[in-house]
Structures are given as structure tokens and as C-alpha cells.
């Protein structure tokens, strides 16, 4: 990042909006669309003001059909544009799943590199907002499991901006999942200028020696609260923000676990067959002889995310994270 840049306080919503604004301004091939994404600026206002600024040809409302949104974006990407499409919620990405799995992820390989699909599919994900059914899901493992996709999840406004710009500039298709629970909950000074954050790189947020905690998205904030409890208990935690789910940054994780000998993984999605499962596999494969305690997942139950009245049982809380940190450290 260049030194003397102006900074502004931004929420995650504003930071993504700012990233889109910058790319729309500098690259005429960028187009932005989705349900309610134009006039209204999206149900979460992530694209607010962009149509007014960049025109209705470049930022617009689509009819209500996720398969069509993704499918047309592929066509645009194959023919010279860089679409950034919004799917309205995690639970409504599935009508577009066929296009994502069958085409987005495969174009490059299918055509031996003749066709690329430089598109970004962004959607809000995650629970903790007392929402109706299908509005609280964390399907990162579904997308990360598909060869050909890259999956990005920011946890701060700064990262969201840098990763979004990198995602738009990437020639690979990117699934960009936005932690809706902290859309407006975190405010941060963000560089007003253009900058990117590399896709595929995790970040060590806090260095520590007793245990490695790996998380991403809205769970970072919960982990940071748990770290306060851990500190009081005299436990030194190394906190890693994954930032990209795939390609996963094995090196950062493995180096940390080699140092601490212990790992606790925190995520909202159901535990089984998850990113947590992948991380456990990685530490077993790459740091087995360094492990001093069984790797632990603090993740959602293998259930549907309960509606509001039951959601507190499901959502991962700081005390639950601390509980597992302590158990792992005292193993």
C-alpha cells in the first residue's frame, strides 16, 4: 500500500461498494447486476448509488432467476466482460448451482484455456441475524468442494475491499461470500485508493504460542472476544483469518500448528464434511508429529440453522470458543 493515501472509515458494505465503484470507474468491461441490485442498490445496499454513477447499462436489476443471472454472467465473461453478479442470499444461490458447477467451474479446463470465465459471484452468507429460513446458511464447503472455483470470505472492511478488487481482476471465477452479520457491525479505516489483497493468503491476526485458532468471516469477531477470555486465563492464542477458503493457505496454517502443537477451528457451517474437516486433514497430513492434542472443530451442528428462537443454540459464541480452546490447551 502506498504511504500517503487518504483513509475513510467504512463498514464492510461500504468497502465492497467502494471496490465495485473503483473497478467500474477504471474498467469498462465490469458490469454489476442481480435481483434489486440496480435501482435500490441491493437489499443490503452493497451496490447503492452505483447505477446512478455508472449508468443503467453497467449496474442493473435482473429478473428474478439465479440460474439466469449466473448463466448470463458466464456468457458475458466468455465474450470479454467482467461481470460481478449478486445472488440475494446464501440460501438462494442454489437455483444458480447448476450453472456454477456445470459451467462456471469448468470453462477454462473444458476449453483447454481457450475460454476463461472471469466473473465474480457475490452473496451475503451466515447466521446470527434472526432471519427467516434460507437466510442464515454458510455454504462455503459446497463451493470450495467444486474443482475450478475459488472461494473468498473477508472478515474486515479493509480485506473486503482488497479482496473484491483482486477478485474482479482475477481471470478465475470467484465465489465471494460476504458475512452479512458484520456488514455494518465493524467500522474500520480503509485506504480510499485502489489496492488488492492476494487471493489464497491467510493472515495471522494475533501471534501466540499455546494454540492455533483458525476462523473466517463473522466468526473472527467472536474469536477475538474469546481471545480476551483466553488471555485472562493465561492462554496464548495464535489467531488466523483464512480469508480465502480455496485455494487454502496450507503454509500459514501448518507453520502455526508446528509452533503451537494445537488447533481449534471455528466456523458456522455444519461440522461434518466441512472446511473444518479439510483443515483437520491438512494438519494431520502436514503437521502430524507436531500435534500435542486432538484437533478440535467448534462448528455448527449437523442441522438446519434454527429459526430465531433456536438460533442461539446453533451460533458459535465466544464462551463456547474459549471452552474448546481451554480444553484443547489442557488436553
Amino acid at each position, binding site marked *: 500500500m502506498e504511504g500517503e493515501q487518504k483513509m475513510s472509515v467504512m463498514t464492510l458494505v461500504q468497502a465492497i461498494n467502494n471496490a465495485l465503484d473503483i473497478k467500474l470507474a477504471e474498467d469498462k468491461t465490469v458490469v454489476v447486476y442481480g*435481483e434489486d441490485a440496480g435501482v435500490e442498490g441491493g437489499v443490503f445496499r452493497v451496490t447503492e448509488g452505483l447505477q446512478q454513477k455508472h449508468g443503467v447499462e453497467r449496474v442493473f436489476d435482473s429478473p*428474478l432467476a439465479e440460474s*439466469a443471472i449466473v448463466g448470463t454472467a458466464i456468457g458475458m465473461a466468455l465474450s470479454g466482460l467482467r461481470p460481478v453478479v449478486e445472488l440475494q442470499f446464501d440460501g*438462494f444461490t442454489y437455483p444458480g448451482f447448476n450453472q456454477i458447477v456445470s459451467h462456471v467451474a469448468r470453462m477454462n479446463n473444458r476449453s483447454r484455456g481457450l475460454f476463461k470465465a472471469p466473473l465474480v459471484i457475490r452473496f451475503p452468507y451466515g447466521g446470527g441475524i434472526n432471519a427467516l429460513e434460507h437466510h442464515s446458511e454458510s455454504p462455503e464447503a459446497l463451493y470450495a468442494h467444486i474443482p475450478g472455483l475459488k472461494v473468498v470470505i473477508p472478515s474486515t472492511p479493509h480485506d473486503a475491499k482488497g479482496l473484491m478488487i483482486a477478485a474482479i481482476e482475477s481471470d478465475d471465477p470467484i465465489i465471494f461470500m460476504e458475512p452479512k452479520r458484520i456488514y455494518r457491525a465493524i467500522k474500520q479505516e480503509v485506504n480510499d485508493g485502489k489496492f488488492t489483497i492476494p487471493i489464497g493468503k491467510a493472515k495471522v491476526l494475533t501471534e501466540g504460542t499455546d494454540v492455533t485458532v483458525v476462523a473466517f468471516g463473522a466468526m473472527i469477531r467472536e474469536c477475538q472476544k474469546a481471545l480476551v477470555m483466553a488471555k485472562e486465563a493465561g492462554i496464548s492464542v495464535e489467531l488466523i483469518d483464512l480469508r480465502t477458503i480455496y485455494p487454502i493457505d496450507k503454509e500459514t496454517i501448518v507453520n502455526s500448528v508446528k509452533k503451537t502443537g494445537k488447533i481449534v477451528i471455528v466456523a458456522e457451517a455444519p461440522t461434518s464434511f466441512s472446511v473444518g474437516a479439510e483443515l483437520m486433514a491438512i494438519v494431520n497430513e502436514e503437521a502430524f508429529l507436531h500435534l500435542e492434542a486432538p484437533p478440535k472443530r467448534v462448528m455448527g*451442528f*449437523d442441522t*438446519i440453522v434454527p429459526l430465531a*428462537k433456536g438460533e442461539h443454540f446453533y451460533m458459535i459464541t465466544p464462551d463456547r470458543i474459549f471452552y474448546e480452546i481451554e480444553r484443547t490447551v489442557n488436553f
Partner: protein
Amino acid sequence: MIFNDFDPKEDKTFRLIDNEGVVLNQALMPDLDDETVIKAYKAMLFARVADEMAVSFQRQGRMYTYPPNMGQEAISVAAGAIMRTDDWLVPVFRELGAWLAKGVTLKEIFLYYMGNEEGSNYKNAHHMLPWSIPIASQLLHAVGIGYTIKYLKKDEVAFAYVGDGGTSEGDFSEALNFAGVWQVPVVFTIQNNQYAISVPVRSQTKSINLAIKAYGFGIPGIKVDGNDFFAMYVAYKEAFDYARAGNGPVLIEALTYRKGAHTTSDDPTKYRNKTEEEEWAKADPLIRMKKYMDQKGIWKENEEKLIEAYKLEVDKQFEEAENFTPYQLDDVFQHMYVEMPDDLKRQKTEYEQFLTWKENRK
């Protein structure tokens, strides 16, 4: 058959009373006794009162996101007047009149919007599917139900709903196509309330109307004034008789207007103007029906008193929902499977151990 006389290709709209409640076509008016008309109006009024109160409960923080029905009451109340106990209702979430007619209680509806799945565990409603939030997906379920009805030779009809926005989803076309091929007894209703959240119907399709889409699937379609109870009643009656007699599915586009916000999280001032709202307010289904009844001199109730009584009833049911058995950890797990996998039991036990630890820390 009105389906033949009001051809969507000519963009005709079937309407029986105007905004002043004046009958436009006496010959086609349904043969309903005064009592039935009054009952329908009361059902619309009750739905309106319940809806307005639901919005205020949400504002008070006693309930979560709620999608109001205001302005669309005539459509589902007309369906409710025709559906029998064994007929199926395959809803979205904006058909309150039909839900109540089916026997779903406000208590159950409130319970759901308070965030308890138990609200979908209907105690009295028969052949009633739960809320379906993924737009248009439920239409296919109605077609499958239609197949069962036909296969088992049941005397039943399925009533399926979708919004104007929902007609853009692939599932909408797939459902109409299957229904046509299979010739199943399904009455599809598109509640065209002019918007899909912020997106107006003109941005949804270039089609001159939505009813005309029926042509592409070889089934009858009609555009009806959805704020006219009588027109909706007649259209439903004809569609119901047609489907029940084994002639196959029917598509009804009910023209209406969403008076309220999309849900309590939405702000319509962002995307529509007052003039338009005021124009549609003149076509309010309750006002029109009331004017009709006044002209016939059949409305003798004290409406204020009636509304007071309805409010008490709504309040009572809301309180019952509020006092419902508190959500237990078990409720998260117990209905995931008919036979619960061992690993789920283990996850629950582990969580209970955490709760014990938490309790002891205090």
C-alpha cells in the same frame, strides 16, 4: 367459459365491479347469497386487521421479519371460499386469507414469525404445505401433488401460488409445463402485485401480461382484477370446476398491488412513488366490496366494533404464540430425521456438557 371470453392475448382483464363497487357485468356475477358475501368481506377485514397488527408487533420487536398481505386480500379470500378441506394449498407467504380459510391459526403464523418452526406444525389445517421461501420452487410440489390426486383418483384440487417476480424463475415454467403434460388438477395463481421487492413487473418481463404465458404450455390462462372479490371468485370457481373435472391445470394472473412494504425490512419509498400508491389505493379490495355492499344495503354491522373484536382476537392469538413453550435444545435436533443418526445425538450431548461448564463458571 370466461377463460375463453377474456383472452390474455388481447390483454383483457376480467372484472365484475369497479372501484365504486358498481357492478359492470350482472350476467357474470356469481350467484352468492348475502351471507356469503358478508362472510367474505369479514374474512378480508380480519386478514387486514391481523396484517396491520403483525406489522406493529414486528415494530415493537415482538416478532421478526414479516411480509404483509395488505391490498391482496380478495385473492386468497376468494380461493378460501372455494377450497374444500381436502383441497391442497401450496402457498408462498402472501396468501393470508387462504391460510386462515384452510384452518391455519394466527397463533401458528405468529409463532413462525417469532422464529419457531413449530408454527409450521399445523394442528387443524389439512392438506396445507408450509411456507416456501425459495421463490417459485413450490409450484413443482403442487404439480407432484396433482399427479398423486390423479393417480389415486382423489376428488381434490391443488391451489398453488407464486408472485409476479416468481414467474421469471425456471421453476415456474417447468411447473406449468409438467402440469400441462400430465394434465393434473392444479390451479396456479400469480399474484401480480406489481413488484418483486424493488423490481417492477415491467423489468421482469416483456410479455404484455403474465396470464398469456399459459399459451406456451397449452393450458387456459386468464387475467383477473385481483382486487375484485367477485371476479376472483368466479375465476376460481371456473378454474376449480375445470381442474376437478379432469381437464388439467389452469393459470390465473391476479392483478393487485402490494400496499405495504415487501417485508418489514423493506422501504418502498426507495423505488415507488406516492401517486402510484394513491392510484392503487382507490382500487383497495375492501373499500370496493364495502361500497358494493352499501349499495345493496346488505352491510348492517358496526365496523368499528367489529374491528375492535378482531383486534382482541388477534391479540389473544399473539399472546398464545408469545407464551408458547420456550424453544429447547431438543427442538434443534429432533425433527432433522425420522431416525436420528448417532452423531447428532453426540453433538447434542457435547453441547449439553458445554452448557454445564458455562453454568458452573457463573
